[in-house]
């Protein structure tokens, strides 16, 4: 176990940060050619309708209009927009354009014109007639026998062998049982059975979705796009347009935030086809309203939790029945609900586990990948119920978690039972400092002073709550990441990776891993990532995989390159390779002689037996080591108005070795604040006909600096042997804490258990009045 790092575990500057802070052109829109056509989409005004006719004859003649696409003039190929590995564990239920619309904000027709204004004017001239169909606007309605069928098209299918029943609006189903839930509940001293519900939310990247396409001289289509999954974009666009993958190049420049919503192919097919048909560069950027209505959201989820506990704190059974609302399309439907089980059920030890995850179609906005990915929803349900069980048996809920949480060396049957679209992968926990996270976090928040809600008086009451969390690091036996590395004359290196930095700093973290392995300075690593023509494959930035999985690919490739350098240095210094160490930009022999990396490069490139020092390497993961975290918060509840203020928030996190501590803290703090506003203020409001009413930052409420509480991150190191220099993931876990921690803190303040999010002031007040 290496602990004396030179580059890793240091808060080196994020390599692109100064360029970003000085405003250099680095984002998709900054590269828009002056002659680009601008796309505007006609969106469905109906939640559910059949398009009986589209007449574009007048719109075609409008000034500046070059092309109009609709279901009558594009390939009809069922696919999924979910940017997942192939074959995707999401149903093929989406067409580029269809003769049916399934939610308000579904695609109807797209116009490309010389200017945005011209495109908007042309949209007004497209004549569409609809046969409006009864709409399904809730989980309950969707699953009622005889409910309107949202996907009645014959093509709808899922390309892997899993349950899929569109005829009854069921987009996904997964189940597992270990032991006997009922027996476990009977054995318990206290058994509980509660329902929880979490609502819609949007990722709100400050840069909305944006894509553009142009044709290269050889006729290939070049797509520059704000995506987390460039390689999946290439594959899915090829499939959707029925063209070979080789005809497409996808480039991801800097992107302005993703959080999962850009793990989706939403604009690229349109700009690509328009560029191919017009020969002109084509540019499309979502408005903020479109980002809310026509991109992706967090799946709303209804959860029933049945648990049993003995007086000594032993958990006798945990049953979790989840149903998500995937909206009009089944993007990530199966895997999100599956993660509701797989990413939380292993956390607390119990012999009897039951899990059913289902996902249903509705005529509402579409669910997708969102940081936390199902675990955000179920962490709320499970951790609130743990809190309640501890209270019921008179045990401090912190001690209850410490007693029952999984530890190093232990395993859970859930790991093997639940995979993503197939069985999971058995693993035992190699690194876990959850207990230390709990202890340090408790100390920081002042857990012991929290008191009982029964003893609290006055209008404003404070409470402290906590949550224990786990996530994963990559999808085992499915995800693959690759990198290539070569040396340059001056001893610098080009590191080319498929890995996709969506603002998280993965380019920096991966460069640190390369520099650590090679023994060079950070500024010697020139990173280029996420270009399907130039870089090796990577599944992309999702499932908390980049540091762990792509990091191992980078470490591997750097080790390969290091061996080649040592060979050359060995010839130069005439000493055995095994006596040579690489450090400080030099190869140093046992007797203290050295040659610089530049000298090695020059010898290899221009000297004798010339060759390119370089390699390519790829990795898959055989396990998904969970990061662990304990979150604590202190809130104040106004008992007259129900308003909840988060006063302080503490997140103690075990992400293995933090490759870049400040960036790991930044991941945590960003996720936590997003989680806090998800818990308290973010909410989709719908009209009775399924139209979102608050699609803008004026009415969909996210936090500014003026709203935030103090967030304190405590990094608690562990060492994950299978990860690069001991690292696990950090990006997703942090968003899962606020819902349960705040709910538990509200209970500690005023004695009400909130089981429906968000905890708006009105919901809290109502709950107190009902108490």
């Amino acid at each position, binding site marked *: 176990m290496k602990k004396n790092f030179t580059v890793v575990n240091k808060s080196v500057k994020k390599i692109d940060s100064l360029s970003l802070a000085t405003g250099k052109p680095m984002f998709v829109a900054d590269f828009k050619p002056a002659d680009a056509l601008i796309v505007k989409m006609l969106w469905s005004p109906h939640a559910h309708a059949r398009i009986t006719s589209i007449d574009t004859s007048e719109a075609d003649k409008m000034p500046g209009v070059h092309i109009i696409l609709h279901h009558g003039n594009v390939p009809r190929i069922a696919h999924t927009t979910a940017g997942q590995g192939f074959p995707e564990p999401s149903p093929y239920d989406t067409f580029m354009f269809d003769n049916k619309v399934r939610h308000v904000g579904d695609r109807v027709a797209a116009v490309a014109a010389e200017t945005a204004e011209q495109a908007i004017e042309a949209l007004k001239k497209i004549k569409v007639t609809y046969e409006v169909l009864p709409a399904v606007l809730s989980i309950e309605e969707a699953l009622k026998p005889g409910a309107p069928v949202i996907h009645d098209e014959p093509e709808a299918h899922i390309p892997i062998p899993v349950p899929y029943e569109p005829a009854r609006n069921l987009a996904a189903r997964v189940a597992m049982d270990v032991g006997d839930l009922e027996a476990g509940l009977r054995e318990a001293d206290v058994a509980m059975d509660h329902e929880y519900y979490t609502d819609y939310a949007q990722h709100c990247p400050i840069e909305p979705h944006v894509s553009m396409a142009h044709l290269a001289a050889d006729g290939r289509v070049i797509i520059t796009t704000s995506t987390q999954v460039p390689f999946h974009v290439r594959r899915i666009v090829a499939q959707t347009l029925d063209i070979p993958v080789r005809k497409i190049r996808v480039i991801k420049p800097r992107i302005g935030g993703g959080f999962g919503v850009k793990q989706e192919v939403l604009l690229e097919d349109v700009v690509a086809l328009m560029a191919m048909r017009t020969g002109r560069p084509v540019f499309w950027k979502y408005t903020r309203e479109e980002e809310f209505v026509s991109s992706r959201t967090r799946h709303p989820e209804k959860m029933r939790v049945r648990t049993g506990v003995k007086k000594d704190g032993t958990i006798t059974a945990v049953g979790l029945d989840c149903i998500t609302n995937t909206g009009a399309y089944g993007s990530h439907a199966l895997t999100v609900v599956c993660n509701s089980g797989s990413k939380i059920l292993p956390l607390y030890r119990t012999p009897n586990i039951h899990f059913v995850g289902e996902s249903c179609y509705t005529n509402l906005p579409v669910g997708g990948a969102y940081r936390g990915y199902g675990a955000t929803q179920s962490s709320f349900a499970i951790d609130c119920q743990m809190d309640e069980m501890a209270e019921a048996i008179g045990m401090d809920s912190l001690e209850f978690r410490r007693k029952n949480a999984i530890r190093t060396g232990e395993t859970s049957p859930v790991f093997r039972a639940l995979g993503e679209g197939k069985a999971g992968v058995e693993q035992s926990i190699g690194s876990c400092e959850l207990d230390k996270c709990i202890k340090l976090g408790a100390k920081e928040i002042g857990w012991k002073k929290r008191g009982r809600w029964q003893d609290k008086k006055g209008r404003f009451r404070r409470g402290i709550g906590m949550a224990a969390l786990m996530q994963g690091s990559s999808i085992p036996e499915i995800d693959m990441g690759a990198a290539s590395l070569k040396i340059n004359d001056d001893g610098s290196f080009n590191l080319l990776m498929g890995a996709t930095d969506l603002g998280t700093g993965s380019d920096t973290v991966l460069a640190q891993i390369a520099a650590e392995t090679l023994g060079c300075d950070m500024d010697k690593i020139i990173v280029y990532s996420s270009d399907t023509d130039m870089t090796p494959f990577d599944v992309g930035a999702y499932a908390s995989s980049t540091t762990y999985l792509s990091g191992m690919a980078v470490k591997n490739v750097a080790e390969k390159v290091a061996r080649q350098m040592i060979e050359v240095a060995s010839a130069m210094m005439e000493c055995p390779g095994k006596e040579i160490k690489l450090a400080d930009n030099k190869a140093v022999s046992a007797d203290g002689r050295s040659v610089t990396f530049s000298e090695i490069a020059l010898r290899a490139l221009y000297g004798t037996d010339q060759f390119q020092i370089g390699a390519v390497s790829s990795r898959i993961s055989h396990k998904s080591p969970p990061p662990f975290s304990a979150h604590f918060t202190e809130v104040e509840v106004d008992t007259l*108005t129900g308003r909840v203020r988060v006063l302080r928030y503490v997140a103690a996190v075990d992400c293995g070795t933090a490759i870049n501590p400040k960036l790991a803290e930044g991941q945590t703090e960003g996720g936590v604040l997003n989680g806090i506003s998800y818990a308290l203020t973010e909410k989709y*409001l719908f009209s009775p006909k399924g139209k979102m009413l608050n699609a803008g*930052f004026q009415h969909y409420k996210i936090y*500014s600096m003026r709203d935030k509480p103090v967030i304190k991150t405590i990094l608690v190191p562990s060492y994950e042997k299978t990860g690069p220099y001991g690292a696990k993931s950090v990006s997703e876990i942090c968003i899962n804490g606020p819902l349960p921690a705040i709910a538990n803190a509200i209970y500690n303040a005023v004695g009400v258990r909130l089981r429906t999010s968000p905890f*708006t*002031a009105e919901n809290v007040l109502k709950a107190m009045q009902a108490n």
Partner: protein
Amino acid sequence: MKLSGYHRPTTLDEAKRILKELGPSGLPMAGATSHSFLKGDEEKVAVDLAWMGYDRIDHGPDSFTIGANTRIADLQSYHAPGWVLDRVALRFVSQPIRNMTTIGGNIARVFPWNDFPVALLALGAVMTITGQDVQTHTADVYFKGQPARLYEPGDLLVEIKVPAVKSGCGFAYHKENVVNMDFSLLTLAAWIRLDKRTVADIRIAAGAGVPLPCRLPGLENALAGVAISTDAIKQAIASTLDSVKWKGGDGFSDDYIRALAQAHLEDVIIDAWQMAKGGAT
């Protein structure tokens, strides 16, 4: 709204003349932050008022005279004895918007969620409109309905006169919203003059949570002449709360806004009382 022309008068007279000539197609531009939200295809010609002055705050013996083109940010950074609009300004949207929006723009067209009308109603401000001749309107008259009813083409709001909050008087302002930047769910303002412990004069106003910003005469009457105490305030609120039809929005029900009003009316009156007593401001 589609902007099809732009004028930039440098004097009040020029502005009035251009607006009069344009008639209904003229659109006074007073910061213009709301122009992007005006719907419809109507063509409008902007008359930018930012270049004609009227953007100062003058401190008189008992009052402040605010030019209609004064930016909210200038109200925020202004400090003088008896000046309280800085607190109102501080709760107004966000700094970039405070830098762009003018007080005249904010009160020329009244929205339910408006901030300043509530404070101006409680303070007893007076608005001066110049056109053919000069009209002055108390806040009560001015905000009785949409101020547009008071304006003929060519008429312009030029000044707002706000009484200083003097010793023995108190003012408080509460805005309840979900995050700092967003629209108000309920805005309340109270001004109070005490004679020893008796309420000699009181004005209470509400905005958001009601159809348009307004005074709460029932509550004022219930408190006028009363020896002030927390209990008296609670009682007055309880007995008059339902004389107002409280209105929800943004996902909050009417009932909830009523509960919010009950809690925060007490807060705002107590805060004004404390200030009048010479306590916390």
